[in-house]
Structures are given as C-alpha cells and as structure tokens.
C-alpha cells in the first residue's frame, strides 16, 4: 500500500487535482547537486518569520486493489488531495479536522514515512519528497515527530535511556558514544523527568510521563521542526495542561517550529499561531487563530466550532448550534466539486460542479478585515458562531 507501483503513480499524476491557489507564494527552490551541497543548505539557519517548510499540492492516494495474483487497481483512497501551506520558523501551525480527513497522513508525508503520490514538500528550498540516502537522512534529523499514544509508541522492552538514546545510534554525529548517557540525562531533565529514571522501563511511568519521554526522544537530535500528532488526546485533563506548558516552554528554549495536529479545538487555539482546517483530504480554511476562531468564513469551520461543547453552562441556551447531518463521505469516492457540499446547508449547483479554490474570498479581497483569509468556499461569509 505504501509504495504504489510506477503505473499507479503515473495514473494518479494525470488525474491529480492541481491546487492553483493564487496567493501561495513562490518557493525559492535551491538547486543542490551533490549530497554535500544539500547538507550545507540544510544546516543553514532560517530567520524567524521566514518559511521553513513549504508544502505545495501534496497528494497521497492509497490504491485499492482487487485480485490476488494479478492485482488490478480499482480505485484509490484519496487521503490527501492537494494540500498547500507554509510553516514559518518559530511558529505553531495547528491542523484540525475530523478523523479520516487526512491530517495524520499529512504528518507522515512531511516525515517522508509515506511516499507522496504527487506534490512537493520544500524544507529550506529542498524538495524532500525527491531526496534519498544521506540527504534524506539529514532532513529527517531536522524534522522529528511526537506521536499520539504514549502507551504504544514506546518499546516496552527498552529502557528509557535506550529509547531516548536510539536517535544517536542512527545519527552518531550528534553525540559521540561516550557522551550519550549524559545527553540522555540532560534531555530527561529538560522535559521535567528525574534523570535517575534512565534505567526504568516505560510501564513504570504514567501516561503524562510517557509523553514526556516521547517528547525527549523527539528533541534528542536538536530538530528544527517537531510534528505533533495528537500529543495530548490520550492524556487526562489535569495532565494535558502540564504537557502543553512543557511544549510551549521547549519551543521558546530551542526555537522550534511545531505542526500541531489535534481535534481538541480549544487546545489548538491556545498553542497555535495559525490554524488550518482540513476536510476530506483538502484544506478548507487557513488563517491566524483569531481569523479562524472569531471570523470563520467556511461553513465547515463554522459547524465544527459550533459543535464544540463550551465549558460554561450559562452558554447552554441562546447558543446557535449547527448540527451537521450524516457522516463524512468516503475518501475513496469523494463528492464532486466542493467536498463538503453533501453536508452543507448553503450548497447550490455550483458547488457540485466547481471545486472551490483555497483563496481569500473575492468579496473580502483588499479589505482589511479578519474575514479576509484563505477559505475554500464559493459562498464564504462570516458567521459568528462562538459568541452567538
């Protein structure tokens, strides 16, 4: 599944949607021929506020096959279908969406754990989807991941010291052999665990502590980008806040950029500088946290925000709630045109025919309002859902 054959890839390329978003900036592609040159590019620092990761038209289709001996492709699960965004140095980009919308697949593509079907991911101007060998290894050192479930993402047979020290085995240039134990203890200290725990096993820790171990492992190689796939959703409420605080502290300390994938909208708002909303493999809306939460223009964002229970019983009455009917359609057979139209209350004929582009809606272009941010809807308009 992960590695589609050449023929599939060609077929997909032809049918792959091109996201001709007008206001996505041009990428300064760096042409580096040799591995040494690539490594030099990757080691160059990026100014704060400059894009460090640029994603253009990223597509991932998982082929559906039939037959045992002669596999025929009968379709594809369009998990990610033309996603573009920028990640700036030192910022946190939140990605929200329902399960199955492709947010975890995006994370895997950025890590090059999955091969993209089409599209580019530029890290400091280098298209990492085309890299291999030593150059890819160097990129991976700089992009690390923190996983959702701290109970399954740590090997139960390895000690904490081995888990956090494992990245050094793969990238020995970061820490010489004799120095590793001390490095691991430093890392434990940084994430708020007792350095004496180095010989313990994961089962001796609670969920929150395990997530700290996962974060320490992510930090081990001094990466520039950390991709967090639902880092707190498996934790208890009182422990969530501790981990979120730790992540914010580390961001300041090590000048990290985060991609923060979650479904808890209030936590995403707290930690993110910008937020992208995904629906069925596409980005529905993207903007700063204020633009998305206070001035959403895409109907899906509005429905999502209105469905979140507010922890304040006095808001119970008088709050308008948009209850969507039905379920998310199958990504193997997404609706034509706008993907949200089957559940949208604004849908018209146009929505079934034309795919809306992710762009600042025409009516808001040139205006200096918070509503003027990118939204993939033909009928984008503001609707105050949170404070109604």
């Amino acid at each position, binding site marked *: 599944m992960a590695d589609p054959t050449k023929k599939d890839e060609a077929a997909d390329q032809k049918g792959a949607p091109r996201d001709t978003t007008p206001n996505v900036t041009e990428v300064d592609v760096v042409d580096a021929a040799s591995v040494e040159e690539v490594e030099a590019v990757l080691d160059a620092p990026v100014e704060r506020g400059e894009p460090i990761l640029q994603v253009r038209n990223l597509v991932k289709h998982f082929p559906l096959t039939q037959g045992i001996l002669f596999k025929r492709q009968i379709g594809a699960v369009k998990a990610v279908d033309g996603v573009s965004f920028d990640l700036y140095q030192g910022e946190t980009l939140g990605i929200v969406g329902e*399960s199955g919308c492709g947010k975890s697949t995006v994370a895997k593509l950025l890590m090059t754990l999955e091969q993209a079907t089409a599209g580019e991911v530029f890290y400091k101007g280098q298209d990492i989807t085309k890299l291999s060998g030593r150059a890819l290894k160097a990129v991976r050192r700089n992009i690390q991941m923190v996983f959702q479930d701290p109970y399954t993402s740590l090997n139960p047979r390895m000690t904490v010291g081995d888990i956090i020290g494992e990245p050094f085995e793969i990238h020995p240039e970061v820490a010489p052999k004799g120095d590793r134990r001390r490095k691991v203890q430093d890392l434990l200290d940084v994430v708020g665990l007792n350095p004496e725990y180095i010989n313990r096993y994961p089962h001796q820790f609670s969920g929150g502590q395990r997530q700290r171990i996962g974060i320490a492992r992510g930090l081990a190689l001094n990466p520039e980008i950390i991709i967090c796939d639902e880092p707190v959703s498996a934790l*208890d409420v009182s422990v969530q806040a501790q981990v979120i605080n730790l992540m914010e502290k580390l961001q300041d300390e090590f000048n990290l950029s985060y991609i923060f994938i979650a479904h808890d909208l209030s936590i995403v*708002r*707290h930690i993110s500088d910008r937020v992208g909303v995904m629906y069925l493999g596409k980005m529905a809306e993207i903007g700063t946290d204020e633009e998305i939460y206070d001035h959403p223009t895409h109907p899906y964002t509005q429905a999502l925000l209105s*469905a979140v*229970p507010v922890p304040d019983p006095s808001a119970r009455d008088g709050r308008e709630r948009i209850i969507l009917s*039905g379920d998310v359609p199958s990504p193997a057979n997404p609706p034509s045109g706008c993907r949200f139209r089957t559940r949208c209350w604004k849908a018209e004929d146009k929505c079934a025919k034309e795919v809306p582009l992710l762009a600042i809606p025409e009516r808001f272009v040139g205006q200096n309002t918070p509503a003027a941010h990118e939204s993939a809807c033909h009928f984008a308009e503001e609707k105050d859902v949170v404070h109604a």
Partner: protein
Amino acid sequence: MTTIDKTASAPSRRIEDDGKTPLLEVRDLHVEFKTRDSLVKAVNGVNYSVRAGETLAVLGESGSGKSVTAQAIMGILDMPPGRIPQGEIRFRGEDMLTMSNEERRQIRGRKIAMIFQDALSSLNPVLSVGYQLGEMFRVHQGMSRKAAKAKSIELMDRVRIPAAKDRVNDYPHQFSGGMRQRIMIAMAMALEPDLIIADEPTTALDVTVQAQVMDLLAELQAEYNMGLILITHDLGVVADVADKIAVMYAGRIVETAPVHELYKRPAHPYTRGLLDSIPRLDQKGQELYAIKGLPPNLTRIPPGCAFNPRCPKAQDICRSEVPILHPVTERDGTDLPGRGSACHFWKETIHG
C-alpha cells in the same frame, strides 16, 4: 417509532414516581479489587442519587472510580477479583446488592440500561446488529425472531439510522462510529428503561458526531422521562447537558453541585484546578494552569485527603484527616441545596 408497546415493559413507572424517593440511590458504596500482592481500593464511599428525568454527570479522571461505580450499579463487576465490602445501591428504594441474581436480571436491561464507550468492541462482530438489538426483546419479552426483527427496525428508525430496513442485517463493522454509537443507544433504549448509565458515550467520536449523539440522547431522555447518569471527563459536554454534577477523585466524591453553581463557584481545589486548566481566550500565550503531580496509585492512596499531595492549599490537617463531604453554605450560613465539598477548607475555596 410510535408503535413500541409501552404496556409491556414499564406499566408502573409513572404511578411510582411521586418525586420523593429517588430513582437510584447509591449509599456509601465501596468497591475493592484483590490482586496477587495488593488490595486496590477503587471506590471508597460514594453517595449519589438520580431522579426520573434528571441528568447526573459523574466527572473524573481515569482511575477515579467513576466507571467501577457504574459497573457495580449494573451488577457487571467481575467478582472476584472485585468485592463490595459495604454500601447500598437502592433502585426505587430496594437494595439491589441483597437481591438474588434472578431479581437483578429482571432489572438489568429492563429498568437500568447502559451505553458503553467503545461501540465497536461492545458489539459482537459476528452477529448482525438486528440480531443483537432483537436479543433484548427475545430474552426479556419472549418475542419471536420475526417480531423481534421488526422491533429492531423500529428502534433503528427511532435513533435515526437511515434506511434502517436495509441495514438491519448489516454487521457492526459496516457502520461508522457515530452510527454504531446510535445502535448502542437503541439497544439501551429498547425496553424503555427508567435509568440509563452512559459511560463516556461520545469520547471516541468526532465533535460534529458527538453533537448529533448528545442531541439524540437528550431528546430520548426527555421523551421517556428517564434518569441519566453520564460518566465523562469532558467539562464541555457536562456543561451542555448535566443538571447536577458529582466530581470524583481517587474513589471518592469530592464535590457535588448543580451545574451552574459548579462552574461559577467551585468549592473544592481539585474542581477549581480542573476548571482553571481549560485553555481560555484571555490566557493565550500564557502558561496554562496545571494541577501539579499525578493522580494517586489506588493501592497506596495518601493518608488524609487523597488530593493533598497535589493541592496548593494543603495544610497539616489534610495529611491526617479524611475530609467528609461537608454541606456547602453561603457566607452567612444560608443553605445551598445540593452542594457539598470534601475539603477541610471549602469555605476559603468557595468564598475566599
């Protein structure tokens, strides 16, 4: 679903409801589990009650004993290793813990039903949903297979599963998460019980689907005037649907209050900490309030108040004396009905 026969299952419900005796009353319930080398005290003296039509939310972190209490009420605890050394669970005034197995079987499913968290693992994957729904009617009411299937279709319609007639023979894996949870609700509603216990009914669902399911549950509850015990850790869901709240910590109830009161003026430091750790708009960019430390290990609950190692207000008395659930009053001593706090310093917490 206008045709479900109401006389069959609960003819006496409305007569008995005089509003004085609560539907369900849990008194001083203790549950412990014996393991090879230790005794896990999961529930240590829980008291709560639910009336018909009322929603009680039981709020707590994992390991606080909220689900174990629910399982004790349903009578589905594994015994052994579980044991109920003391306590009463009164349903309409009768203690269920002293009943015979046969008597409890009459109540379970028919009068008290339960909705489980994970619908996929609670449904049998090798039986069609229609068969599993119909089982309620066949076992409890001795219906024929054919009649039971007809009832199943009605139920599926009732919980708004589209094309119920075509889908009644489908298997659980053919439904989406939200639809499976609807089937769980349909199964719990089948015999129109007086009380439903919902154990984290929407935790595994997305927010948009969660809104649909909570809406449906509220609508059915109003229609049949059921009591509902909602077990959850989501402060948002609780604020939306609950009438009153019981906050649990380490097997005890630390605070009880009507929903509006609790969010406005918490009277226990733990509740206050939970509410403060919700990210708020005006705190953007600042550090979130976090309760320090970890929930206690249930084999070694700290002496005195179980929350004392994590509490910012802890004094010497908190480490030696277990606080009782004090009735909470206004500053001038006026009663606040339904409020209680198991904190030695509840006065300072609520008024200070």
